């Protein structure tokens, strides 16, 4: 058996996969929301007999917790999507962090530089190594977007 096939079969047989992790995350979010409801939603009681500000969030978060719990229970034996390779996740995490840094630095370095860096990075991550397509193309797109936003749409880009 080829190593690739072996590893993919091993991944597909896992019962605790991505769906379980994400659903558990949603369950956690719902429970944290319910526990922090009193501190995050202030209610001024004027003696109204109707529902207050906490009514709808409590209802929805309870339903979310219930549904997430139900899904975890019903799919406890189901074969799920494999988590994927560490390399793929690292690449995605790297993209998210770099886009986040570019956004955070936008006020400092400007929209053009931030957007161009994001474009170049994405191009490089997707495997483009030719200078014209990996550097010049994102630069041109970023410049065109900046120019159009400022001149045609009168948007105050950083």
């Amino acid at each position, binding site marked *: 058996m080829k190593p690739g096939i072996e590893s993919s079969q091993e991944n597909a047989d896992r019962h605790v996969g991505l769906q379980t992790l994400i659903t558990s995350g949603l369950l956690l979010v719902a429970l944290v929301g319910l526990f922090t409801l009193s501190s995050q939603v202030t209610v001024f009681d004027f003696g109204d007999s*109707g529902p207050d500000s906490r009514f709808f969030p409590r209802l929805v978060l309870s339903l*979310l917790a219930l549904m997430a719990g139900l899904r975890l229970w019903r799919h406890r034996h189901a074969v799920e999507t494999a988590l994927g390779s560490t390399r793929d996740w690292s690449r995605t995490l790297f993209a*998210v962090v770099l886009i986040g840094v570019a*956004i955070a630095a936008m006020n400092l370095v400007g929209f053009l530089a931030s957007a161009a860096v994001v474009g170049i990075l*994405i*191009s490089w991550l997707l*495997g483009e190594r030719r200078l014209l397509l990996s550097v010049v193309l994102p630069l041109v797109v970023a410049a065109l977007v900046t120019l159009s936003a400022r001149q045609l749409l009168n948007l105050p880009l950083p």
Partner: protein
Amino acid sequence: MLLDAFYALLDVWVVIAAVVGVIAGIVIGAIPGLGPTMAIALLIPVTFTMSPIPALILLLGVYQGAIFGGSISAILLNVPGTPSSAATALDGHAMARQGKAGEALRIALYASVFGNVFSCLVLMLLAQPLASLALDFGPAQMAALMLFALAIIVLFGGGSILDSALMTLVGITAGIVGLDPIEGLPRFTFGSFAAEDGLQLIPVLIGLFAMSEVLLQAFGGHRQSRPSAEVGSVSGHVGLLAMWRMRVTLLISSLIGTFVGILPGIGSTVPAFVSYGFARSRSRHKETFGQGEPEGVAAPEAANNAVTGGALVPMLSLGIPGDAVTAVILGAFMLQGLTPGPFLFQHHGVEVYAIFEALVLLSIPCVLFGLMMFKGAVHVIKLQPRHLFPAIAILAIFGAFSVNNSLFDVGVMLGAGVIGFLFRRCGFPLPPLLIGLILGPPLEESLRQALLTSGGSVDIFLNSPIALGLLGVTALCALGASLQRLRHRRQGN
């Protein structure tokens, strides 16, 4: 009103918007991976400075063009440009392999236009009466209507009911962040002033549909390259007589598409396959389906294009989006100051009728540019993701920023992108999330207003025949869906 609306269309900017929208839609739809939802989400910021009629016609032109454009790559490459054109690929690509690509493309184009015109006429007939009916709705009836819409999305949206319910609740939960709609108190803002406005729709949907796709491509890395298949000649001819022979198929498929489009949350993929199956079952040459049967191209194309008009019926008259694309278009309407719902026809009648008329007239540029662009589309569909997605990432950042000139919104867009990426990796459906996000705040407002009026008693729902009827239909739908699943499970065993 109809004449005033028509005069409003006699403007050079409206014509330019229609032409640009249709061309952009056909190009974007033809590129696998770029659907109308992402295209419209990214184009909304471009329409900020435009007046409502050309702005909305541009976006609706993209919608119509992209649904047809999806069939180009389905026929030529066997790679559907949009999920709804997957059914077209079955016979369309078989025809292309037989050297009849041009014929298949023309049948797809004419069937698309037929489905589109049919559904737009239904839209014109149904939307205004439905809106007038909804004018009598109070908070209890509106809450029951929104519950019904959400239930339909969960029960019949396709895939797992539990996953759809989970995603709808995630969307409604996201809608809670910000100021309370009744008392104006901050909720889950964690002390952030910027978060008091809540999660803005446009940055969220750009994140969910554009940034998440960029991250999915980054996750796949080098493996995402498309094989550059050889595409044969796209010349050919399809006469009126050939289309006339398919009239019954076109009519039935358009009816299916329009009806399914009116139901919230189902989208255009289901009616395309249902119409294909229906056309096959009533054909005398069942065995030719899947091997290059022209009716196998016409049926799904008429159906998936008929969804466009159908989905706009509940969106315009009730403010309830029919699918992910109309949810995005609803956001565009709101940004232009036209809030979809029962009052839209009263306050902005000329604009709405102008849009109706434009939807029918958009068929003209669709046919003209569709025929002209077949040859160009052959090159467009060969574009590789690594050349497209850097530009999409840049446009996503720009689009999120331009809504309020706020970097907080860009952060929201990135956050929504990460969440969308994780959900899509898991196979969780995103349209219920988006529709939950849109319908959550008005549902809460109506529900609480109704309960405040009744002093906290649920009798207000039981004493109203409309609310009671809607809740009854919702319960019947739930029962029907459960019985259907049970039957499928038994058949599976």
